[in-house]
């Protein structure tokens, strides 16, 4: 029983991390039909620069961590906005080329990060409380899990509120459904492209800092390996659906934890099979609209 609870809660924690990456991917895809292979790079740079600044402010302190998170968000958002404005925008409506450009950017940035920070993972210092555990129904849950879950929940709430109660949110929701009709109402939908990139980048950058807390290190590859999981989550959840991304993040991560524990470390394999299964039964994902 303890094990089940432990796996469940840590699964949700890992899912929180996936969500931070997948939410942006899903929004970007939903609105722009661009599968963003550079998204992992947003995460990595957010994590690395967040760590660089945070440790100077206060290594292993709450102040340092909070600064890291703010820096991570800002860096991720900035990187994403530059990507959209400089590279994606010029290839308006040429989706294959847009994907290819993000592939190139992803590859190039990982190499650049390796050049700057080296190829090995760098161990990071944690706030003391985050190193401890809290007992829930007999299961000893690592405290950093609570941080991941609460931050992701805040991000989810913030994005939902933004989408529901602002004009740009309205434009984005409408654009995900039918972008052509949004422009045919006289709205310059490109501004909201930049915006979803900024939001997605900020969430990913924040995810980078939290990944460093979760794994206890930062590295030039962190984003790329996380990206594959985020893709799987996004597709299972339904491309373009934020709720789908949230639900699938948790499902996938929990499934992965259980399979890793009970089925001899086959978590990665199981979620790939789950992806294939979902796609064959429901090609548009759990919450996705029918893909054209």
């Amino acid at each position, binding site marked *: 029983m303890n094990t089940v609870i432990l796996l469940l809660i840590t699964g949700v924690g890992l899912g929180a991390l996936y969500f931070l990456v997948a939410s942006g991917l899903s929004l970007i895809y939903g609105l722009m039909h661009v599968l963003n292979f550079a998204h992992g790079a947003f995460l990595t740079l957010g994590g690395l620069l967040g760590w660089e600044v945070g440790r100077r402010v206060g290594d292993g302190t709450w102040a340092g961590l909070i600064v890291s998170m703010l820096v991570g968000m800002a860096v991720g958002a900035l990187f994403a906005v530059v990507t959209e404005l400089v590279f994606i925008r*010029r290839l308006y409506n040429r989706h294959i080329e847009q994907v*290819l450009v993000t592939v*190139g950017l992803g590859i*190039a*940035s990982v*190499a*650049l990060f390796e050049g700057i920070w080296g190829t090995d993972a760098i161990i990071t210092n944690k706030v003391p409380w985050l190193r401890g555990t809290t007992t829930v129904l007999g299961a000893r849950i690592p405290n950093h899990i609570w941080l991941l879950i609460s931050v992701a929940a805040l991000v989810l709430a913030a994005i939902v509120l933004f989408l529901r109660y602002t004009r740009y949110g309205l434009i984005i929701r409408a654009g995900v459904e039918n972008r052509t009709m949004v422009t045919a109402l006289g709205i310059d939908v490109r501004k909201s492209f930049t915006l979803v990139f900024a939001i997605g980048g900020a969430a990913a950058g924040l995810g980078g800092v939290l990944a460093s807390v979760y794994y206890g290190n930062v590295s030039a590859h962190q984003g*790329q390996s996380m990206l*594959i999981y985020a893709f799987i989550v996004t597709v299972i959840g339904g491309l373009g659906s934020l709720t789908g991304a949230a639900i699938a993040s948790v499902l996938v991560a929990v499934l992965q934890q259980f399979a890793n524990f009970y089925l001899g470390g086959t978590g990665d394999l199981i979620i790939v099979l789950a992806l294939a299964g979902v796609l064959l039964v429901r090609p548009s994902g759990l919450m996705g609209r029918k893909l054209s």
Partner: protein
Amino acid sequence: MSRIKIVLGALLVLFAALLPRLNLSIPGVLPGPTYTPGTLQILAYAFLIAALALSYHLVFGVAGLLSFGHALFFGAGAYGLAIILRRLLPAELPPGTGLLIAVLLTLALSFVVATVVGSVALRVTGITFAMVTLAFAQAMNVLVRRNTGGITGGEEGVSVTSAMVPSFLIGVRNSANLYWIALAILVVVYLGTLWIERSRIGTVAAAARENELRVRVLGLRPYTVRLFVFTAAGVLAAIAGMGMVLLQSGTTPRVTSADFTLTILVIVVLGGVGYRWGAIVGGMIYTLLDKRLSDLASSDLIASLPGVLRVPLSEPVFILGMVFVLVVMFIPGGIAGLAERIRPQTEESAHGQR
């Protein structure tokens, strides 16, 4: 294809075949004269990458399927051959016979793998197809890294020792033989690609890329046609993968990684989507450039630069990645497209023969 082209192609192959017996140097491109093992090794590697790129050209360029899992089949060829040689063949078989059997078994295996993956993945289209193929390739990557069943060797990969292959394929002395095998593989894959592209199925697959409706109207199922092309491309990729095992005396998980698939994609786009010779030229240039940029990275010139320049310039993959981005943005059609535009309407280039 005109007769001139066939003759030119044959001469080019003949010339390539003679290189190990010639003393040609291209400073700055090749590390040494063409008869030296180091140069032959690099050229052979480039041929195999070009062959792999050609097979991907069938999937992406001809059938228009954006697959992110093509490395899976290269990996299936590489791991299939290495594992069969190492584990499954009775030790008393003479190496030559053993290799032949292993190659045939691997071909059959890769055919099955490609058919299964294709028949599942092709049920969806567009970006979802891309994701499913990525997921399959990732599953394979996870499997081999995990050292599944104790046969894939985990991060180490699988090595092939001298007892398992004929002696003429082993050692630095025999680089020329390996070079010729790589060249032969490139030629075989080229002819296979050409044949499929020219066949009725290839034509229909290309038509389905442009307009699925028209193909359906003809009473053909795009699914079947695509599956055929996808599977054939998978088998051709596996052939290239087998060549790599012989060339490098084994295989590592890298050849199954998503990064490797992306590299192939980059190569095909650099060379020019839709052009057979673009895939070959892209594969050759990418490999040689990668090698040269690595050498440049460790040169004194680079070491003397200030950090802002030194760090990016000493990462070949960074440079290649950015070059790729620029090509996608500013040179649609890649190298082949550019060449086509420079000499626009000469004899055949105006119609067909892409």
